[in-house]
């Protein structure tokens, strides 16, 4: 029986099944905390702990799904091209919004960590929470953070933005689709972009490009801001 858990089938099947169920639950009740990514991953973590299965064993199958992240990011370039005439039309406000978001993230994380006297190593890991994980992990390692913690934090900030981002923006009367897309992408990278795509293609395109731009911007500016403030 335990042999079943060693097959790639296990990781793939449990992910597909819980995501499918999560999607159905979310579509039925439309509550932000019933976020499909959150439901699925919480259920899988619970299952793995209950049956005493290692993450590595789950990931034998899981990594087949993770593989598709690479081609999906390339696919965002196609969407970017499709929506380019619209993005070009508001290039200035878009770029400014992404840079301001990126700087706000760095300043607010560092300031709050200083106020709460968080150990410096943690601050350095948290500073890159809003950029896409492959960039975040590398920069975190380069500035003396803990890459595995950064990887986790990036995912949680992604799920947070995916789950509550749109509600929070609407609450503050931000209803412009392009602005919502940009905000989701520059705060919650790929996972936020997944939410923006549910909203509309336009929001998705802004979000995808915002993720890309903020990733590059923060990778360059972040280490410098850290040295300045810490």
């Amino acid at each position, binding site marked *: 029986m335990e042999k079943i858990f060693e097959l790639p089938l296990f990781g793939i099947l449990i*992910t*597909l099944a819980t*995501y499918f169920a999560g999607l159905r639950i979310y579509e039925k009740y439309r509550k932000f905390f019933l976020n*499909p*990514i*959150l439901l699925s*991953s919480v259920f899988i*973590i619970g299952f*793995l702990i209950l049956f005493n299965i290692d993450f590595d064993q*789950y990931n034998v199958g899981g990594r087949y*799904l*993770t593989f*598709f992240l*690479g*081609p999906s*990011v*390339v*696919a965002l*370039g*196609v969407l970017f*091209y*499709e929506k*380019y005439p*619209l993005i070009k039309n*508001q290039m200035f*406000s878009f770029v400014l*919004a*992404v840079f*301001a*978001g990126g700087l*706000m*993230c760095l300043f*607010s994380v560092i300031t*709050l960590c200083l106020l709460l006297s*968080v150990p410096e190593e*943690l601050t350095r890991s*948290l500073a890159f929470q809003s950029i896409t*994980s*492959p960039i975040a992990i590398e920069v975190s390692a*380069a500035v003396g953070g803990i890459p595995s*913690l950064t990887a*986790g934090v990036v995912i949680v*900030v992604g799920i*947070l933005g995916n789950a509550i981002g749109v509600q*929070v923006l609407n609450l*503050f009367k*931000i*209803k*412009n689709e*392009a*602005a919502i897309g*940009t*905000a989701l992408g*520059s*705060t919650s990278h790929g*996972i936020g972009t997944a939410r923006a*795509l549910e909203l509309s293609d336009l929001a998705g395109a802004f979000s995808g490009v915002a993720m*890309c731009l903020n*990733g590059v911007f923060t*990778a360059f500016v972040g280490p410098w801001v850290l040295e300045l403030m810490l």
Partner: protein
Amino acid sequence: MLKAFLIILAFLLSGELINQIFSLTVPGNILGMLLIFTALKSKLLRLEIVKPVSDKLLQFLPLFFIPYAVGLMQSKSLLQEHGMIILVVMLVTTLFTILTSGFIQQSLNRKDGKDI
């Protein structure tokens, strides 16, 4: 479909190659994204060829993140020690960031009369 997927993988590969050859911090998939955009923009590649597959990939994007999220269980000890403080920092700063970015773009667009 197969051709489209092959093209997308070829762009991903080019991105990864550039990343390795020049040892850049910008990851290969983001470089691939910029490359495919450039190819489409310069008419080297036609949108209809890649669109069916790229749309499908984006439709399933949330699914591909789940194994990463499950991987959080690996940083259990760090989270037990500092979990609460990390959560507070993340929650507060995520709200600041998302509102700053959204607010700036919306108000600048309004000023220019581009209210889409």
